[in-house]
């Protein structure tokens, strides 16, 4: 399940989503991305996330469905924040249950990479010097129409 929320991504929310581990799973891998205090040499004060929510949730669900097809995993979840976030606040969370850790790690990596590339979510960085700017993944901005992978 993929969804966008304007509420904090906290333990209660994650545990509610994860539920009871499937009995045939030996691994749970999760990834959490949070707001960092710098980007490209500039001191960041806060981040504002804007989403095209209806489409973001469709594209996000498609990515999870793809992960379930590509990897031998049992369940996959992703939550993404919208709104104004402070330094250290979780912006995105991915969780994957699988029988074995190897697939869980790989699927988790696949999901976060695809989410960053395809889900219609934008972020505006507010800098310590009071300026602000919309962030564009540089590789995407230069070859936006080509499918590619990068860190």
């Amino acid at each position: 399940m993929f969804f966008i929320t304007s509420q904090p991504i906290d333990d209660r929310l994650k545990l509610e989503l994860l539920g009871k581990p499937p009995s045939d799973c030996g691994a749970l891998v999760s990834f959490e991305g949070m707001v960092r205090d710098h980007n490209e040499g500039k001191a960041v004060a806060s981040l504002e996330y804007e989403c095209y929510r209806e489409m973001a949730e469709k594209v996000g669900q498609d990515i999870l469905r793809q992960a379930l097809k590509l990897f031998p995993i049992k369940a996959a979840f992703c939550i993404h924040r919208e709104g104004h976030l402070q330094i250290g606040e979780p912006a995105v969370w991915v969780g994957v249950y699988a029988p074995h850790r190897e697939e869980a790690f790989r699927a988790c990596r696949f999901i976060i990479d695809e989410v960053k590339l395809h889900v219609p979510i934008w972020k505006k960085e507010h800098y310590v010097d009071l300026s602000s700017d919309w962030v564009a993944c540089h590789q995407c901005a230069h070859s936006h129409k080509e499918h590619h992978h990068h860190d």
Partner: protein
Amino acid sequence: MKTVHVLYFAKLREERGLSSEKITTAARTALELWEELRQKHGFSVSSDFLKVAINEQYCDFTSQLAPMDKVVFIPPVAGG
């Protein structure tokens, strides 16, 4: 002429000063619509740096527009 619903996000929303509008246009494709809007409103972004979605699905700029389509020009995304 047909009427389509255009939504704006992020940089384009700020440049347009609106989140959405109904547009009556002779444009046949998404690209023709973008060029029309760009000329009218002076957006700073070229279509080379955008993707387009019609009715919540990514599609080509050469896609044909139908009446009441929901069209969104998507600046480079930056989730995560």
